[in-house]
């Protein structure tokens, strides 16, 4: 392939330009990272201290002493994991029904679900807030998890995957006397594992990063997710516990997703592109 590479519109100049510009991606992150290990007191006299020190890990150990951040972290974990499991279950079942089975009204219902992809959050968030108010469910995990389960993306993705499995596999299973449930559970579901991974990572990141819904649903400080919690400590930015501590919180909150991202990077990237090109 190397022989044809230059003709494929790929240019070294462009690559090095992109590599140089990546400093702009790094720089803000690096700045926060440096601030997070600089002594708070020195920073309070001026952020130039980030270049000279003294450096310390105290900002991070302070997080350990701040029960709020840990509580928020745990909340985020519960919400993100709960939503991921819920979406995987619902989307797999629905994907099988839409992609593999025939029932009256299937096409129409699927089209309606697809239309749901086009509904922006702001068009439903006020009524949702009222529904959960009426049910007295605000400031519960259920309220934080449930709305994410209604998104059609996972159903769409799983339907595509179920459709892509050769029909002979079902036919062989039908000749093997397998029931619908057994075909789903023993034969087809294992074949969708790559899709499950993709959808799982997506849902986890999405749930972890969600901001608006937890902002209005979780008003009790103990029910904040990490996103909302970090936002709340930014409110009086200048006079908080200190820039270093704030920066350390940012790094602490960013780490889980960055780790997930680094581990599953290939998956995330192929998932994004694969899902869209089809």
């Amino acid at each position, binding site marked *: 392939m190397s022989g044809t590479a230059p003709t494929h519109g790929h*240019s070294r100049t462009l690559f090095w330009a992109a590599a140089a510009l990546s400093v702009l991606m790094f720089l803000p992150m690096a700045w926060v990272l440096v601030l997070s290990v600089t002594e708070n007191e020195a920073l309070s006299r001026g952020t130039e201290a980030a270049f000279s020190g003294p450096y310390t890990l105290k900002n991070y150990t302070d997080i350990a002493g701040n029960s709020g951040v840990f509580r928020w972290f745990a909340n985020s974990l519960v919400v993100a994991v709960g939503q991921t499991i819920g979406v995987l279950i619902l989307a797999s079942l629905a994907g099988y029904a839409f992609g593999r089975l025939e029932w009256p009204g299937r096409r129409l219902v699927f089209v309606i679900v697809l239309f749901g992809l086009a509904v922006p959050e702001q068009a439903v968030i006020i009524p949702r807030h009222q529904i959960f108010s009426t049910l007295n469910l605000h400031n519960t995990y259920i309220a934080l998890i449930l709305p994410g389960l*209604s998104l059609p993306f996972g159903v769409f993705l799983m339907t595509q995957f179920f459709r892509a499995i050769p029909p002979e596999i079902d036919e062989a299973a039908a000749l093997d006397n397998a029931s619908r449930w057994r075909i789903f559970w023993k034969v087809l579901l294992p074949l969708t594992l790559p899709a499950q991974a993709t959808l799982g990572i997506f849902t986890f990141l999405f749930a972890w990063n969600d*901001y608006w819904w937890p902002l209005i649903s979780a008003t009790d400080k103990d029910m904040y997710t990490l996103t909302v919690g970090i936002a709340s400590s*930014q409110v009086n930015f200048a006079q908080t516990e200190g*820039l270093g501590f704030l920066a350390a919180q940012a790094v602490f909150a960013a780490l889980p997703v960055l780790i997930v*991202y680094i581990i599953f990077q290939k998956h995330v990237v192929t998932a994004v592109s694969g899902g869209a090109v089809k």
Partner: protein
Amino acid sequence: MAAPHRQSRPSNALFAAPYLVVFVALLVVPLCWGVYLSLQKADLFGLYGYTGWTNYARVLGDALFWQAVRNTVVFVAVTVPVLVAIGLFLGLALNARTRGAAFMRGVYFSSTVLSVTIVTLIWRFVFIPGDGLLSLAFEAMGWPPIGFLSTQGWSLFSVGVATVWWCLGLPMILILAALQQIPGDLYEAAALDNASRWRTFTRVTLPQIRNTLILVATIQIVMQFQLFGQAQLMTNGGPNGTSRPMVLYIYRAAFENWDVGQGAAASELLFLIILVAAMGQFWITNRGNKA
């Protein structure tokens, strides 16, 4: 009549039922309920009767709403082309099977996985007056300081910078995927036809990824119209509402002023604007390219 094993059976719908319940309860019902609310006099605690188009009239008569519309449209009109252009540039630059390119793709996509809170925190550390990275840089260069987050014009610009930094991963990946779909022999044919690099780009590459570019632009239009967290956290719409987007206006109306009816009416208007913008953009690009 279908074969026994794929006969149409109502019981097959049971597999879809769990999702459909959630879908109807938390998406379909709220969507319809929202339209209903927008025609009601309502606050967070209850409904006080049908008011017809009053809420819409109040929203459309509100100068702050029009300011938010203007802000949002300007924001979308600037960030979307920038995002598409950067995505295209990165796609072309990083479309190679080298470790370096893979690493750079990872770097450019990394910001996308961060939450809006982290992104705004990072950029506040850059923009804050006196202590921010830019402040220090300006000081070092001897330039007069700029209050990026508190000056009219600069505040929306700063929100835009953070947004582009946050969102450029998705356009890049989508465009990369499209570039990788182009069969290599097209380029070989172009090379045999003595096409210059520029002609190859305009006559082979661009037409091949046209649909993806349209898709990317549509996605970004829909996403950027919903600008909320960055503006709320970085500038809180200020100064004087000059960086307040429509969603922040809705948030204020419904969840700070508790005027749920007005918030719902503004939501429906924004929904309408997004639909029109996305479809209009799609229509224009499709038509323009066919002609």
